[in-house]
């Protein structure tokens, strides 16, 4: 399995076209319907959630005219390399049997000593990873997403397996929506059972997502943390209005990792991290600074994250944590799913491209962990990341062909 995956990744450059096409081709069969709202009252905000070189002698070039250079004036480009006093902390997610867990592999994120993909300066230590969303009950999904997961909705274990085996997820995020007191109000024991099934179905590291209720989430997280002690789950998320001390303690005691979530404000992010430092070491904290969708505040999210990363590199340890992004929030933009008329269709392409654009923007701001939804968006992000860290060089000669090519 691992070997096969590796092989797939190596071939990703070639496989890209056919795979994405396969993922997207399905849309042609699907009747266009409006955004489905099956669970009308459900809150779906993820907290962490060339021409031949033909020189013309006859042109009135005036070589040697007064003041005009007759030959190229050769010079060198001084590569602007900088050093940073800080380093982003490395956080390892998941634990293998030998390490006290049951995962097939662990994933380490962070460790940067330069801004994102400044590989002219320093290579990327750990390439960003993708965790796919899995919901533990039926949720409103746009058609573009739903068509890929319709057979597994309501079966989180099967959904997780699909995400890993077919969509190439590095990790899986289990959104325990059903625990919401305003929805099914499922018990902590119910949630444990769901997680149990998923740990059996897939062996990747897991992200445990709550419902957004600060009290209920803490109760459920506590139960899961204890039952799955040593698994190094990413607990998504710990927010300022939860019982931070209690949460930090059960995360620490049972060997998990906290996702420190704050609403787009670096001071609040620092503050929450400080509260967590009383109980957790820096290596146990990933931060989520809030992701807003392309067109709906992405600029704020981008700048906030870019500032956080530069701050961390400049020595602000309270911001020197790997960053997670609830990239799925891209679908909150109506342009991602709305039927907009012939000029803007098909939305089955527009939607996942919306998610890709949101993801790539934040990739360049320094995000280490992407929580994503659409398989084509996931595939693209993984391919781009693989290309960026491949160490391969550009084929410069071919580039000039763009001028004269006939696509």
């Amino acid at each position, binding site marked *: 399995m691992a070997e096969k995956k590796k092989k797939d990744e190596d071939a990703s450059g070639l496989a890209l076209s056919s795979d994405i096409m396969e993922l997207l081709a399905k849309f042609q069969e699907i009747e266009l319907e409006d955004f489905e709202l099956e669970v009308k009252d459900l809150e779906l905000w993820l907290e962490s959630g060339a021409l031949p070189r033909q*020189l013309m002698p006859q042109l009135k070039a005036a070589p040697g005219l007064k003041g005009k250079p007759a030959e190229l004036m050769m010079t060198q480009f001084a590569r602007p390399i900088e050093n940073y006093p800080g380093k982003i902390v490395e956080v390892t997610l998941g634990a293998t049997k030998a390490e006290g867990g049951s995962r097939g592999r662990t994933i380490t994120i962070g460790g940067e000593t330069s801004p994102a993909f400044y590989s002219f300066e320093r290579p990327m230590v750990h390439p960003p990873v993708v965790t796919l969303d899995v919901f533990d009950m039926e949720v409103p999904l746009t058609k573009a997403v739903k068509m890929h997961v319709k057979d597994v909705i309501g079966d989180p274990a099967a959904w997780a397996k699909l995400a890993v085996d077919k969509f190439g997820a590095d990790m899986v995020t289990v959104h325990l929506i059903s625990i919401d007191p305003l929805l099914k109000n499922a018990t902590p024991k119910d949630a444990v059972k769901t997680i149990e099934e998923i740990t059996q179905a897939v062996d990747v590291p897991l992200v445990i997502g709550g419902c957004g209720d600060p009290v209920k989430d803490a109760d459920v997280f506590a139960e899961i943390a204890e039952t799955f002690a040593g698994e190094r789950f990413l607990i998504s998320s710990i927010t300022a209005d939860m019982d931070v001390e209690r949460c930090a303690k059960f995360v620490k005691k049972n060997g998990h990792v906290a996702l420190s979530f704050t609403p787009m404000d670096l001071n609040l992010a620092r503050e929450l991290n400080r509260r967590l430092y009383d109980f957790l070491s820096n290596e146990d904290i990933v931060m989520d600074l809030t992701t807003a969708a392309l067109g709906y505040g992405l600029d704020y999210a981008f700048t906030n994250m870019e500032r956080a990363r530069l701050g961390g590199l400049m020595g602000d340890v309270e911001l020197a944590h790997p960053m997670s992004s609830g990239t799925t929030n891209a679908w909150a933009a109506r342009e991602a799913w709305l039927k907009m008329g012939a000029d803007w269709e098909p939305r089955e392409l527009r939607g996942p491209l919306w998610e890709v654009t949101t993801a790539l923007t934040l990739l*360049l701001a320094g995000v280490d962990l992407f929580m994503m939804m659409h398989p084509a968006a996931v595939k693209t992000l993984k391919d781009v990341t693989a290309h960026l860290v491949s160490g391969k060089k550009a084929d410069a000669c071919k580039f000039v062909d763009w001028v004269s090519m006939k696509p």
Partner: protein
Amino acid sequence: MTEREKKTKVGIKELSPIDVYKLLPKTNCKECGQENCMAFATKIVNREVNIDQCPPLLKKENEKAYKQLKEMLKPAVKEVVVGVGDKAVKIGGKLVMYRHEFTYFNPTAIAIDVTDEMPEDELLSRVKKTENFSYEYIGYTLKLNMIAVRCTSGDPEKFKSAVKKVVENTELPLILCTLNPNVAEAGLMAAPKANPLLYAANMDNWKDMAELAIMYSCPLVASAPNDLDMLMSLSKTLHAYGVQDIVLDPGTFPNEGLADTLNNFTMLRRAACKAGEELAGLPLMGVPMAAWIDKGDAADEIVKWREAYLAAMLIVRYADVLVMHGADGWSLLPNTVLRQNIYTDPRKPVAVEPGLKVFGTPDENSPVFFTTNFALTYYTVASDIENSKTNAYLIVVDTEGSAVDSGVAGRKLTAEKVADAIKETGVESKVKHRKLIIPGKASRISGEIEELSGWKVQVGPRDSSEIPKYLVEKWQP
């Protein structure tokens, strides 16, 4: 640039209004429209006004101060104008590397290509489609900006005739694309006054291209794919040759070349902004349509997809002008929105004033909505209510600039705040009914709102675009 010059150049962050004020005429004449010279200086530093708006400064006796100010305010990346008239575009003019350091000026110009071998109707339809591209987004109209005419025939006459057709049919600025100076000259002859961007001078043809750029006084792209030493050599040589406006093309490489692409753009921009390197301080051109070079047997949609995400990465990483081939709405919309986002002024507040907004002429039976004071949410909802032509009240709740969904999740939007806002806005004295239409994404707090406010809650649509439909189907006072 000499070391001495580098040191005297003031970084944008260190520039204070006092520095500017010292060089102004200090007449407090108000001819610029400001109260006094200090106010004008402050606006200059914030780049809200231009020094040319100070009439006394333009007088002969102030020439020295004017020049000093020009130099002091010179952006790290030179601004280059392409085209003429209303549709001319400014590219470059960047003051900073990171947008949070100040703000970015001159949004990335997007050009769509046509070729000299396209049938006339196809060429014209691409030009029109480019010109007519338009999307209304929170009070802005998103547009495409330029036409890139490529010579695929190798025939100067064909190129000339294609350029002629384009200039006759659009006022959008042009990029003339050919590496053959003969062809380039033919193109320029067809658009002698259009101030097109000429693509490109490279290590082989630079002298002829430089002559053409000077003769037609048009901006010129220097191109050295993945060779920054050569690019700087070309920049230096063209400057020395007397070419006024230069744009840099370090090459755009899809797929395996992505790392080199991003590195080159990033290094050039950093050299300009952080090291004051003038040879690099020029607008950068990206060519996402390079994604089509290796098309192979991939479906067009896939190449458009690759081209689109390559463009997105270049919008984030410092491209000042982009040439694209895919002209579909679905692939261009995300990029035009991204461009708008990245180029908004981060100094502007995220939030609008909370309070009661009135639409049309509401009476005691008109519907009452609420939304948050996050600027984007507010403008989206406001525009949807306006479009519905409904007379209505909209309560803007202070959520400290959070959107509805993140506000509920982050407890910035609570039932208490909604109940307080109902009281504070005095809407209770304006309508007879007690029915509040709340955003669909705030449904989880509907019970609490009813309890605390005494109003009956009607859960509205999850997306405000459905407000008109909702009112027809569900609203009764």
